[in-house]
């Protein structure tokens, strides 16, 4: 079983509507994989299944070798998640937010403090650890959430459209930072996005459209001479007008 992330023929329905149709892909350990798809492609449903907010009887998901269906807690323990909607408690300080999360993973005392300091260092926000989350700008709140997702040293990091609502500079900074984390710390990353400029040429690309995987491979190989945006629009046969803004 893969030590990275493995999704094997996963399907999900909302009543009669098929949200995911036999979705399969693997992300090798230490790889950065971008899950690219327009709004409504099924990315959030897939994230809910990956984080066990939902479960499905169709297909298998494994995180760092742990089967989500059979050993869900072991799988969750190896995973860090940054949700699309903000999950910080704005009345608490950065450190308190991270301590709360560490405790949910059974970490406390000196061990938790050491890990929290290390995570804050990795995201370069340790100097602001005593500030309330409310006082941070959008970019720093996101950094805090990423630092929090790393406190328990996960093997796999999942990020669901983590740059939504950020300005261009913060967006670029966060995108670069997570790419660097992946390369330096051998972290397996799954980054869901609908923005093509967040995907680098060396990244693994998983294209999701209308609940199905349209293509998978290295971004540079897949797009060839085209821009990623053109490649994606050609593949999905989406009308260019309107889709330009979405991608």
């Amino acid at each position: 079983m893969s030590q990275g992330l493995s999704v094997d023929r996963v399907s999900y329905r909302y009543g009669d509507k098929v949200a995911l149709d036999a979705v399969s892909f693997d992300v090798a350990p230490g790889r950065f994989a971008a899950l690219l798809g327009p709004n409504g492609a099924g990315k959030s449903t897939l994230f809910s299944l990956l984080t066990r907010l939902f479960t499905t009887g169709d297909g298998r998901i494994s995180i760092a070798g742990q089967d989500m269906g059979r050993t869900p807690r072991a799988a969750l323990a190896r995973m860090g998640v940054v949700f699309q909607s903000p999950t910080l408690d704005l009345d608490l300080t950065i450190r308190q937010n991270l301590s709360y999360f560490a405790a949910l993973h059974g970490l406390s005392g000196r061990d938790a403090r050491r890990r929290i300091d290390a995570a804050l260092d990795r995201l370069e926000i340790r100097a602001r650890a005593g500030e309330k989350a409310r006082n941070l700008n959008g970019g720093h709140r996101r950094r805090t959430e990423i630092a929090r997702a790393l406190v328990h040293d996960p093997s796999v990091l999942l990020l669901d459209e983590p740059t939504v609502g950020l300005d261009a500079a913060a967006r670029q900074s966060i995108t670069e930072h997570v790419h660097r984390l992946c390369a330096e710390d051998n972290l397996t990353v799954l980054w869901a996005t609908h923005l093509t400029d967040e995907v680098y040429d060396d990244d693994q690309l998983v294209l999701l459209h209308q609940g199905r995987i349209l293509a998978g491979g290295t971004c540079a190989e897949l797009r060839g001479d085209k821009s990623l945006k053109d490649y994606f629009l050609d593949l999905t046969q989406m009308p260019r007008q309107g889709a330009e803004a979405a991608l």
Partner: protein
Amino acid sequence: MIPYLVALRAIVLREGLRFIHQRERFVAALVRPLVWLLVFAAGFRAALGLSIIPPYATYITYETYIVPGLCGMILLFNGMQSSLSLVYDRETGSMRLLLTAPLPRGWLLFCKLLGSTAISIVQVYTFLTIAALFGIEMSAWGYVAALPALVISGLMLGALGLALSSFIKQLENFAGVMNFVIFPMFFLSSALYPLWKMAESSPLLRDICAFNPFTHAVELIRFALYLQFNGMALLWVLLATVLFMACALWGYDPARGMVKRKG
């Protein structure tokens, strides 16, 4: 076992911190029962004659009668308010954070329940202290004996809120909870009038009150405050707690899709 306790402490502590940051909520939660006690009960005293019923050994004033019911009121409103915060939490995402922790979901929900019950109990004792300042006193041991009754009643009402929160899809529906859960539960109970008094006007209403688990929570607290044990009330409250908790676990079962939305 230790990770379970670490998580429990953190969740209860977080509830405490949220409580400290929402002081106006604390004041509002106290004003409500105090208005009932000091205004409503004073006006109502003349209209309602109370005979001697257990656990009371002598004639009591109406203010004395409704104190346990108002303790229950604090637990009831807080239980529902924490269900409101769960719906809100779920929308802002912090409920997701809780539910993706590598611990059994039942335990995580129980911790959350215990945290909000602890906050409610602080409010109940503050209310009892103010009531004592106005001359409605119990024996010192009565306050101690009431604690387990308050804990189990708080858990029951919190579990009800938790179960409701898993079925409420939007924040706006909380008004419906007020009208269809809180008010009927409170008024169709022994909180404001003893059941025999209710039976005088309508045996049907009396039966509904006797079925209402909130009645039993209030009676459990009432008897405990007077150092008496009401086994039937305890049994009823325990059964209701188990039932509401089972509903909550079912509501939050990932196979049901807790926050089913289009992806």
